[in-house]
């Protein structure tokens, strides 16, 4: 359960961005969560709801988009895109793969109220 540390980092980034825009209120937050990011979306939601109280984002809506694993095969060159964890090329079965996406966790965008 390291999701609370991740959400602490999220609030540091969000508060910094809100400050740059002179905003006192964050109304919407969108996260992109890779299936191999190591974070569980449901636990991120719980941690967000606990953390947001008495912050600029106390009424913010959190949206989480799961990012599938995107693998490029170094043998046959084809792309494999999967929502679950696979470690073989979907075309030739090779395990000689480059991971292109699905391992990160990032704040994609947010909505602010501006005076």
């Amino acid at each position, binding site marked *: *359960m*390291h999701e609370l*540390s*991740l959400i602490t*980092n*999220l609030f*540091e*980034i969000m508060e910094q*961005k809100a400050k740059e*825009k002179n*905003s006192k209120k964050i*109304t*919407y937050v969108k*996260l992109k969560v890779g299936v*191999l*990011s*190591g*974070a569980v979306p449901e636990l991120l939601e719980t941690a967000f709801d606990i953390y947001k109280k008495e912050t600029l984002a106390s009424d913010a809506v959190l949206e989480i988009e799961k990012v599938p694993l995107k693998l490029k095969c170094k043998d046959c060159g084809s792309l494999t895109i999967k929502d679950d*964890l696979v*470690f*073989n090329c979907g075309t030739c079965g090779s*395990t*000689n793969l480059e991971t292109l996406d699905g391992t*990160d*966790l*990032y*704040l*994609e*965008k*947010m*909505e*602010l*109220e*501006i*005076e």
Partner: protein
Amino acid sequence: MKKQEIMVLEDLLGSNKKIAGDIRRKLSEKGILAINLLSSPGAGKTSLLEKLSEVLSPGYRMAVIEGDIETERDAERIRAKGIQAWQISTGGACHLDAKMVGKVFSEIPSDLDFLFIENVGNLVCPASFDLGESLRCVLLSIPEGDDKPKKYPKAFFTSNALIISKTDLLDKMPFNVDRAVQEGLDINPKLEVFEISSVEGTGIREFVDYLIKNLKKLRRSNA
């Protein structure tokens, strides 16, 4: 009052990655190979370090950063071997992060060869946090069962080496080494595999050779 949407595209682990990158660069400049040891609690990380301290001495100098939720116990075990050790008590956190490692960084002697970082015993959360290591090694012990790699894939996906530990228990427990290794390699074909027993001392030499090979590689890349 109007609403404005802004694109951010910032990694939630960005600050950790930045600190880890600084640690990796500084260690690399000093020619120190840092190894992050990951496993569930009780897989034998500290016992492996005790054994390594015997085998690496006197030719190589090592030190250890110990991560635990509470107590100084592991650091005391390492110090009893005459090895410098720092205990980081995370106070409840399930993993070490780069900032915690950064706090003891100034105390690390420049003439080290190996800096081992023993992570909090947990096969899940530590896998997400880069500590600035050059090598990440995951231990899987015989009592845990041979089906763990696919149940906890990220630890295996992000590691450089898989260490099957406590092999002295193989005749007492139904653990299929080939299955465990194959599952690990299915997730990450680049894993180097070692089978060790810290009690009997088997496999330690092979792992030490692997560490020395990587130390030389790190120093060659500096030259």
